[in-house]
């Protein structure tokens, strides 16, 4: 090193100045953009950005990334969609806090409460399918012979087979709790485990313990090869799973992008998108993962 200490110090200082200039420039851009585009109170706040809070199963199945978002981007290239995958419970909390513009959720009772509180302006069913009960092939609780999910669940505690729950306030967890209630069983005790994790991890645990769990079909099919579990349930009314889109109420949450949210909802319920949703998954799994369910198509309402 043939430079003197003072030269080195100067180099270091120059480096510092450059780094801070870069930081300032990076932050400055965003700051300027924010002030230009958000004249207070005109409702156009963040018009170029749409925050979508979605249930994990819709994102993880690939439906959003492969089908819905490309269609939306094509129709509205000026809007960047930020997809945040969380449980239905957390998604609705984001809506309540005005931190999301549009929600994709599957927890009908909570959705009704959400609308009742005035947090949403539009709620439309966009797709449906049936949850499935999976478990060991020898099926000690006789789930396969039960008439519906409540009857199947009722036999699990005494079958000596564990039940593994998501336990994470997701739509799937909510559905599971409603089935326990219908079955008249309090889900507590040695036979009942709560993972507090996503569907993938929960299926892993279920497979390791050779227990039962409630799952969406998409996640199960994509993991089937590595699991030692079988689909045991038939489609019954108490396993029906309805996905809805909700537009967050801009009057209550002024910083939300209601215009963008409405455009997103429109694309979802459009008849060509509904037809594509009805076919999604066929190429990969040999069966569709969702059935179209927009009321606009005369599909079943809530």
């Amino acid at each position, binding site marked *: 090193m043939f430079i003197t200490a003072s030269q080195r110090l100067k180099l270091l200082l120059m*480096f510092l100045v450059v780094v801070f200039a870069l930081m300032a420039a990076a932050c400055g851009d965003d*700051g300027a*953009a924010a002030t230009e585009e958000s004249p207070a109170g005109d409702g156009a706040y963040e018009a170029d950005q749409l925050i979508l809070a979605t249930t994990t199963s819709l994102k993880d199945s690939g439906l959003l990334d492969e089908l819905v978002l490309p269609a939306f981007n094509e129709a509205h290239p000026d809007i*960047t969609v930020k997809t945040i995958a969380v449980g239905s419970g957390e998604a609705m909390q984001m809506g309540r806090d005005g931190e999301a513009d549009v929600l994709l959720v599957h927890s009908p009772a909570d959705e009704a409460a959400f609308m009742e509180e005035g947090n949403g302006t539009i709620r439309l069913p966009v797709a449906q399918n049936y949850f499935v009960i999976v478990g060991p092939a020898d099926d000690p609780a006789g789930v396969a012979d039960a008439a519906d999910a409540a009857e199947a669940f009722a036999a699990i505690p005494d079958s000596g087979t564990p039940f593994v729950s998501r336990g994470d306030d997701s739509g799937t967890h909510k559905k599971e709790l409603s089935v326990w209630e219908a079955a008249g069983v309090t889900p507590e005790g040695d036979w009942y485990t709560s993972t507090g994790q996503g569907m993938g991890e929960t299926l892993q645990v279920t497979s390791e313990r050779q227990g039962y769990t409630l799952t969406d079909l998409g996640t199960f099919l*994509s*993991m089937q090869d590595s699991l030692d579990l079988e689909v045991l349930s038939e489609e019954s009314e108490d396993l029906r799973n309805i996905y809805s889109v909700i537009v967050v109420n801009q009057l209550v949450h002024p910083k939300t992008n209601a215009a963008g949210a409405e455009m997103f909802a429109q694309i979802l319920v459009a008849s060509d998108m509904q037809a594509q949703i009805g076919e999604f998954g066929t190429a990969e799994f040999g069966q569709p993962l969702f059935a179209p369910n927009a009321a606009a198509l005369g599909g079943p309402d809530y």
Partner: protein
Amino acid sequence: MGQIWEGFEEALRLLFSGDAEVYQIALRSLWVSTLALTIAAVIGVPLGAALAQIRFWGRGGVVSLVNTGMGVPPVVVGLFVGLLLARNGPFGDLRLLYSNQAMVIAQLVIALPIVVGLSMAAIQHLDEGLRMQIVALGAGRLRTFWLLLREARITLMAALMVAYGALLSEVGAVQVVGGNIRGQTQVLTTGIVERMRSGQQATAIALGIILMLLVLGVLGGMTIIQQRSRRT
């Protein structure tokens, strides 16, 4: 075992088929953590050195705060930074939540206490006689400072390596403030979690292997620089 092997094969396939998304995710991980570490080093090393040498009222409190900061779980940092940057939070108008900048900010908050605390320890660890000798030989304040940093360079480098490793493998904070948005803010760690959750285990293992290779490469490189500097 079969699954791990499958993951290895998938990792090799993804790496060599030039899968654009995987490269993008890996580059984003590298970029976010490197920027956060650079800023943390630029601010943190001088701060740590100053804390080591300057006595002032309340110094004990500051030192405890820094040392506590080293142990704060990243997800708590993420939660806190997320609340600050949220739309309806105090800095909501900057529109930074769910962006790469937000991830850099959160990681900076994680790295800064580590860099400051370990730099302080590195300088304090030096022989006090050395400092007195340097001053006695007529070195000015800045020159003394510089010479001490130079003397402690191996430990300082280790401090930066600890922080870098923590940032590259951190998942809690980037998940909360970045949102793990595909094509926008997904990094290797959050990508692994998403693929585990959705049952794509082979891809999850593949991303894990890529992350380990990245950490190995970066920290290995820094180790070489650190060990070479011993001889000069």
